[in-house]
């Protein structure tokens, strides 16, 4: 059973590696540089998938938390925990990539624009989530508290989104999903291909990492169980 799942994980990892390399090739070599921004625009191929993955992650935290409150099964909590950690990782990556892109394009590393602020707040919420987990000793209580925060935090996202947007907005208007044009009309087709490949690569990489992190959680549970058995 374990050997089989390890084999599946190996395949997933290999697949992720291949697509990541392929997407690097496509986005760095095949896709043309942007007409206005030049080479630096290529960061978009990392930036956009990583924030989408972060949102996916927070959605999984919400699902895992809800299921855990409902059914009380440890695996749902392990999923939420793993997803939260990866969500924090990908949100941080998004902010760093954005800064690197913002410096030559906007002239500043950071600006208090709505989307940047929202991303930073998400990072703060889920770092708080991880701290909460680590500061409660009892496993089940930590899981319960974290599940509540996972749900409340996700419910809060639309409200934070609305409020920071009303507050200010300066970010690039979305360049792919625009109301006035279809995606393939305003973006060079090979750019769109690069973005799609890169998104698939990130998705595969994400699920590979998630399965690894989930396994670490399972192993942690096994260690606790063994310890209890030995009465130590």
């Amino acid at each position: 059973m374990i050997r089989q799942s390890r084999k599946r994980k190996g395949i997933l990892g290999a697949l992720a590696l291949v697509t990541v390399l392929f997407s690097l090739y496509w986005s760095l070599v095949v896709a043309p540089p942007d007409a206005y921004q030049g080479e630096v625009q290529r960061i978009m191929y990392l930036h956009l998938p990583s924030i989408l993955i972060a949102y996916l992650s927070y959605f999984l935290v919400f699902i895992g938390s809800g299921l855990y409150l409902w059914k009380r099964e440890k695996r749902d909590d392990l999923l939420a925990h793993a997803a939260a950690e990866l969500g924090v990782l990908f949100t941080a990556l998004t902010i760093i990539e954005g800064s690197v892109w913002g410096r030559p394009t906007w002239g500043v590393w950071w600006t208090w624009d709505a989307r940047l602020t929202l991303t930073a707040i998400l990072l703060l919420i889920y770092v708080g989530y991880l701290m909460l987990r680590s500061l409660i000793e009892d496993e089940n209580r930590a899981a319960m508290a974290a599940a509540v925060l996972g749900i409340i935090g996700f419910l809060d996202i639309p409200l934070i989104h609305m409020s920071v947007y009303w507050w200010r907005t300066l970010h690039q208007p979305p360049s792919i999903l625009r109301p006035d044009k279809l995606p393939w009309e305003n973006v060079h087709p090979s750019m769109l291909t690069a973005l799609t490949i890169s998104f698939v690569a990130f998705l595969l990489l994400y699920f590979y990492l998630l399965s690894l992190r989930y396994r670490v959680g399972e192993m942690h549970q096994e260690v606790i169980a063994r310890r209890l058995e030995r009465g130590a």
Partner: protein
Amino acid sequence: MTLLRQTGLMLWKDTLLELRRRESLLTMFFFGTLLLFVFNFAFDLAPDKIAGMAPGLLWLAFLFTGTLGLAQLFQAERENHNLDALLLSPLDGGALFLAKAAFNLILMVLVEIVVIPLFWILFNLPAWNLLPQIFLVTLLGTVGFCVLGTLMSAITLRARARELLLPLVLFPLMIPVILATIRCMAEVLRTGQFGDQVAWLRLLLGFDVIFLTAGMLIFDWVIES
């Protein structure tokens, strides 16, 4: 009906405890006043700038004093396993949640009733006639703070360093309330009316309702663990 009766009883218990111990209200009130003094030294509060800074400063004071109250909110339940006793009784989790949120709301509103006029006096703000609008915004924001704060206070109940952890998890979630109240108050102080900032009031109301409902629904799980 039972829910309201249980809420009333729990609220009465907390009020009675507070009247006898006088822990939370006095410390919160003193801390709020102290913050006004600290602000005076930290910022250059010239009369022409103060109206622009007042909303932010007031909300900082409320956030900090409110957190002080929240950190003490379940103190009585922590002592002598009182929470376990409550859980054994046929008490609805929703009632406990409502009572605790209402209790913290009462404490904060009492502090605000003193601190806001004091702010007007200390920093010579002329617009006394705008106080009702300011209080309305503050009340809506404070309800949101207490509702979400009670939930966060309950989930950090058994954490190490919980007084430090509470603002860490609470403040990022409070950002819609902070933004909405400050924008609204700034508009009122500048123009004398809400104008097109009424949308913020709706956001505040939505925030209060969403988390009040969520809290009532999940509080049973929050405390039983």
